[in-house]
């Protein structure tokens, strides 16, 4: 159990997030991280709360907390958010 104490609550992302997938009625719309970060904060909040967003690294889904941290550190945005 001692080892578990040293494990982070969420694994760090080794590969970059390359795609944000937004669920639509008949499929998904994909966007790169910069485009996602440029969306209004409220819009992003609502999409995540509605469970319509998948953060992808080479096609693999990344959990929400490490994904958002990675995006905050690496992806650009706009001044309006």
């Amino acid at each position, binding site marked *: 159990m001692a080892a578990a104490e040293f494990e982070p609550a969420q694994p760090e992302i080794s590969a970059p997030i390359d795609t944000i997938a937004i669920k639509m009625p008949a*499929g998904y719309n994909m966007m790169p991280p910069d485009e996602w970060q440029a969306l209004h904060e409220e819009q992003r909040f609502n999409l*995540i709360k509605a469970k319509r967003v998948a953060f992808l690294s*080479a096609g693999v*889904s990344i959990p*929400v907390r490490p994904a958002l941290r990675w995006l905050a550190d690496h992806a650009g945005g706009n001044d309006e958010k």
Partner: protein
Amino acid sequence: MAITTPREVIGSHEGSDRASANRILQLSTLVVTAIVVALSMWTTRSGGSELLTSDANSIRGIDDLWVTVAAGMVFLMQAGFMAFEVGLARPHHAPAVALKNLVDWTAASLAFFVVGFALMFGGGNSIIGWDLFALQDIPISIDSSVSGPTFFIFQLAFAGTAITIVSGSLVERTSFLSYAIVSVFMGLIIYPIFGRWVWGSLFDADSQGWLEALGFRDFAGSTVVHSVGAWTALVGVSIVGPRLGRFDLDGTSRPFPPSNLAMTVFGTLILWFGWWGFNGGSVFAFDGNVSRIILVTNLSGTAALLSSGVHAYATKRSSQVFSTVIGGALTGLVAITASADVVEPISAIAIGLVAGILHNLTGDLLEKLLIDDALGAIPVHGAGGIWGTLAVALFAPSDILELWGRSRLDQLAAQVLGILVCFVWVVGLAYLLFKAVERTIGLRVSPTRELVGMDVFEEDPIHAADADELADDELRELLS
């Protein structure tokens, strides 16, 4: 009946009654003979007239039969496209790829029947037609050699070809419903209205389109069919984006290996066979031109295969040569389509040789631009369509140009105009269409489905970020 001759009558000395009877018999015989001869002459004349009518009907019937058979050959190209695409796609996507080919034919059939044909060939002006909706009041007998329904079936097969070209580019990542909607709008508006501008007079000489009035010529659709499909595909792949893993973040291309090249070759041969009907049927008559057109069609395809193969062997990895050569051959068939009715066989070989090289170069360019044209529809139908359309002006014999009343330069200008108009029209409308679909119902399948395969009747699994992991305050903090 025994006929009494005059000599027998004159020689008779058996009584006046008998002589009178013989005279009456003689006269009656003459009258009957005259009537028989007259009837015979009338019958012969009437029979000749019937024979002439019958010949005309037979000729018209043969034309009608040939165009119907040619329509069937073009329809068979749907199976060719299916086999071609299934062989090039990754195996777990094969069922969806096959089904999409079935669906776009259905969409084309209904949309083109109800609206598309009317916009393309109905009475109207040089821009759009506005009668014959759902073939209402379509004439069975028209000025041309084929009947109205036969003409429709042939044109429907063409519309289906233009629409199915798009599926080859968008495979493996495009939502099934979204693709079906795009197919319907292609059959409703994009294809028929441009077709009106070029082929409006094919059904009714009074319905000449404005591009054909300016001298633009496209015999069987290098631009009208193939470029329309290619430019729609170009817009589609640009908006849908590449398949996952197709390009690295640094732009390195990672081609997906074909699943079954034998199946692709089988599809190519079906397409090739269909092309004989595609071009040969466009004469709308079964005359000596048909076999000549099939000959030049065949020559261009073979020449393109040759040049594409030599170029690919010299410039590409060995694993890419096979699939490249197949696309090259199809490009030659696309390229000859615009001019198959006028060019000489030796010109067809030249057209094919250039087409094969253009195919390879266009494919390389798309790779550099990170455009994932999954099965190579744009090099085949786009590059082949442009080259073939230009080839009309470059390779048409001088006497044909004289017949058209145009210099080679004039004709070239008309061809360039048609190519540009097609590009602007199709790209403009297709952009609006794809963007509307993207914003309303979405274009792509889920990443999971894309990676493991698509079963269009299963619910799309969503692996969305689980927002329940976070409280609202923490989520807002991470987003800010």
